[in-house]
């Protein structure tokens, strides 16, 4: 019987450390001119440099440095006037040079923070997450382990190597140890990653898709008995591919640690893999014996020394902070806190904003993105933003509803068809033959038919029994295959029976 989370936090205080890797959205790689398109055929985006061929040399991507400085500034970091790349030496087949060009003791950005707010039963709570460093490095290639049951290296017959990802610019954002979150630790971690993602998206430096790996979070968790000074042994959980997983993985690790500690067992310092299906972690690589990466300054590159002018220029072009932007939107839309939190959690704020910008009413826009569309996204287990429906589509649908050319029910059909990829709104309405029947004469004919079929009901209505009209309205709606506007049918029917 697993320990309850309440029992964990009654006895222990968690400490967190979050390492977020972000693939920068530069057009070319960190040290060569190769493309960085996701999902290209294996090994088609490579060259002597990113394949680590003998003799090839790296040249730093200036855009990547500018992006990293922008991230540092957005996270309130100091930007080093002089920083260097270093080589992190270890052997692995998907790393072409068998060293990773990274930053070690001289990172480009240091000592920042990010303020976050979480919504709790006790009201909203603010936390400041301190950032230790933001540094640049290159991504590795990918190993595909073939023939085994699990897709993991253990048990595989052979492996295939794809170096398309090798050399893609990565930025690593490392927090200082985060204390004092208590029972909110899982939510704080999630909110931090979410806020960070919004900032990065706002900066336009990455597409921040957790499920595609362009934003990856490693969560370090340790527990210590409440009141104790000494930090407990930490585990580092990888493979955390969604915001929800960040929260679940930390909660699961806190419970696992507490169970070990309660039974006087020791927590092993190791990496753990999170599994979406079970919500649990399994053991990865032991980190008990610190690996010796033999870091030394990369002799093939010159130090990075951004000028004050460049830093000032980047600072001047930073977009509004997401928290400020959210506050403005909330005021403009007159949305309560709960609703705002719901939009943020469902990750549809940008979509709602875009829909409103295209002329839609904020309330309608919000209810579509949070309602029908969120429901379908949930069903398909994808992000709303990845569905084949755009803010423009939703704005168009809303406009048609307002004009009375679509009913809510018909609009839902259109939305579903859009998501199924059946084409534009106009095309869907045409091919599906969707239209609100507003031609009075054809409606009247249907009303006559309904009355003829149920003269007794009609008589009741004539006699003043208005609720009885429901049956007749239903029959008309059925007759028109749901395309009639029910309110209009009601008006016409009652008028016809002398009750209008």
């Amino acid at each position: 019987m697993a320990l309850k989370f309440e029992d964990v936090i009654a006895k222990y205080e968690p400490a967190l450390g979050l390492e977020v890797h972000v693939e920068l959205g530069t057009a070319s790689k960190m040290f060569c001119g190769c493309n960085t398109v996701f999902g290209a055929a294996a090994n088609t985006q490579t060259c002597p440099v990113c394949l680590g061929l003998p003799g090839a040399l790296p040249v730093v991507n200036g855009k990547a440095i500018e992006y990293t400085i922008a991230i540092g500034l957005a996270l309130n970091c100091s930007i080093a006037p002089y920083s260097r790349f270093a080589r992190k030496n270890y052997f692995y087949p998907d790393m072409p040079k068998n060293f990773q060009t990274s930053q070690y003791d001289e990172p480009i950005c240091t000592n920042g923070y990010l303020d976050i707010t979480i919504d709790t039963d006790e009201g909203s709570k603010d936390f400041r997450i301190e950032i230790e460093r933001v540094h640049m490095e290159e991504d590795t290639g990918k190993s595909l382990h073939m023939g085994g049951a699990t897709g993991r290296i253990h048990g595989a017959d052979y492996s295939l190597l794809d170096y398309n990802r090798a050399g893609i610019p990565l930025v690593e954002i490392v927090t200082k140890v985060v204390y004092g979150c208590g029972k909110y630790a899982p939510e704080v971690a999630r909110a931090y990653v979410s806020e960070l993602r919004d900032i990065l998206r706002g900066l336009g430096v990455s597409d921040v898709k957790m499920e595609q790996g362009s934003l990856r979070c490693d969560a370090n968790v340790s527990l210590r008995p409440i009141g104790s000074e000494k930090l407990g042994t930490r585990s580092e959980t990888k493979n955390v591919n969604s915001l929800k997983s960040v929260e679940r993985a930390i909660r699961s690790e806190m419970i696992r640690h507490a169970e070990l500690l309660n039974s006087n067992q020791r927590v092993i310092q190791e990496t753990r893999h999170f599994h979406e299906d079970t919500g649990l972690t399994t053991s990865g690589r032991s980190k008990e014996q610190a690996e010796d990466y033999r870091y030394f300054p990369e002799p093939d590159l010159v130090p990075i020394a951004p000028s004050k002018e460049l830093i000032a220029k980047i600072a001047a072009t930073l977009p509004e902070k997401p928290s400020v932007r959210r506050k403005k939107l909330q005021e403009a839309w007159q949305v309560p806190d709960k609703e705002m939190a719901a939009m943020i959690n469902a990750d549809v704020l940008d979509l709602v904003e875009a829909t409103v910008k295209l002329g839609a009413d904020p309330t309608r826009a919000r209810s579509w993105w949070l309602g029908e569309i969120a429901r379908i996204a949930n069903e398909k287990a994808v992000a709303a933003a990845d569905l084949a429906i755009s803010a423009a589509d939703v704005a168009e649908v809303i406009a048609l509803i307002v004009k009375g050319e679509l009913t809510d029910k018909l609009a839902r059909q259109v939305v579903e068809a859009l998501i199924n990829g059946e084409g534009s709104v106009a095309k869907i309405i045409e091919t599906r033959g969707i239209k609100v029947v507003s031609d009075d004469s054809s409606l009247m004919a249907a009303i006559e038919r309904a009355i003829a079929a149920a003269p007794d009901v009609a008589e009741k209505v004539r006699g003043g029994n208005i609720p009885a009209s429901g049956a007749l309205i239903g029959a008309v709606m059925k007759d028109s295959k749901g395309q009639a506007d029910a309110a209009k049918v009601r008006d016409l029917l009652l008028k016809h029976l002398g009750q209008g």
Partner: protein
Amino acid sequence: MINKSAVEMAEALNKGEITSVELTKAHLKQISEVDGQVHAFLHVDTQGALEQASQVDAKRSAGEKLPALAGVPLALKDVLVQKGIPTTCGSKMLEGWRPPYDSTVVRKLKENGIVILGKTNMDEFAMGSSTENSAYGPSRNPWDLTRIPGGSGGGSSASLASFQAPLAIGTDTGGSIRQPAAVTGTVGVKPTYGGVSRYGLVAFSSSLDQAGPCARTVLDAAYLHEAIAGHDPLDSTSINAPVPAVVAAAKNGNVKGMKIGVIKELQGDGYQAGVLKLFNESLEILASLGAEIVEVSCKYFDYALAAYYLIAPSECSSNLARFDAMRYGIRNGQGSAEEVMNATRQIGFGREVKRRIILGTYALSSGYYDAYYGSAQKVRTLISRDFESAFKLADVLVSPTAPTTAFKIGEKSNDPIAMYLNDIATIPTNLAGIGGMSLPSGLAAEDGLPAGFQIMAPAMKDDLMYKVGAALEAELNTKWQGPILNSAPKLGAK
């Protein structure tokens, strides 16, 4: 014709006295006749060289204006990649590998119409001073086939001294251009670090490696230097500044009024008497030409060798990690990737390379980094300061290039320290990143073998070396009644 200088060959080509194809064939013939004894080449690209030569001839007959050395053949050290041509770095590890791209040096050679005859032998991954560490057997010194031609670029120097090529490219990490030049009676120049692009130069020690020209005359070296030098956006450490006017300097050799600094620490104990005598004779010539000879002291040079043997192995331990059988080169063993990597590196690398990888891995280990790599970097800074101070007292600095003439093959193979000491006079310039030139100073009295005179200039003042070198060379050639290689034994077809 093959005994002429590259500049003379270029003149003959310009005058139409010979075609590049004829000139190339003459060298290919010499290669086929003597390289069985010398073993300067690892790969001769007969077809490619002749194609390149005929292209130059076609351009010339069409009246196109051609670069100075167009049509002149050259031997390329096997550490620089050339598209489609085997590049082994003298290692079994890269046996059969044909690079898919040209190094910047090769691109520039091709753009200059210089005909690449083939790839020359070297110590494995440029680690050594004799070519005995080549996985393909040593090269031999044309002056005495039982002796080493220097290293690591012994194939390039031997090809020049046996008239298999009038020009060659070397690379110099601790003396691999200059020491082979010294022991074969040829000229070799290590340009200022960053003067010639390292793109496509298979790295031994990135912060020390520098490609440069090898030739039989100072002027030939200058022309080749200008052909391959210049800023390269593909090499971040390449200097973005105009190439020093080395050809003009070599044409106007003159030391009048110059201050020439003799480095106290680079003579005396450990230097062969005949080598020192020749060095002093050269100094007298320079003085007679109007130079002022001053003595300077560079007291941290005593630590240069130790610092070098921490920095170079550290960098090499990382640079050579990529040879793991995953993407190119040989593959040995089976099982997991790790097992294959291990088995391949076991058989792919030779003893000296393994020794240096182990040394470097150790020096970079946590807990030892500060004591070894960190201290070595501090020494490096102190050596640069020594040079800075010395260059306040003198325009150029001089020393014997190597402490001895060529030793016998096998003589030092089992004594790495004795082997390392060969580079004692050349290593400081690599650590400081400045330029160094070696030119022949004569034949040592004890053994009748060539010795080298080294000239060092401040960073990006490579032209000063050529100015001094050309002046000295002219006087020495007058004294010897012709280039020193005229006295070399003739190698004939067997």
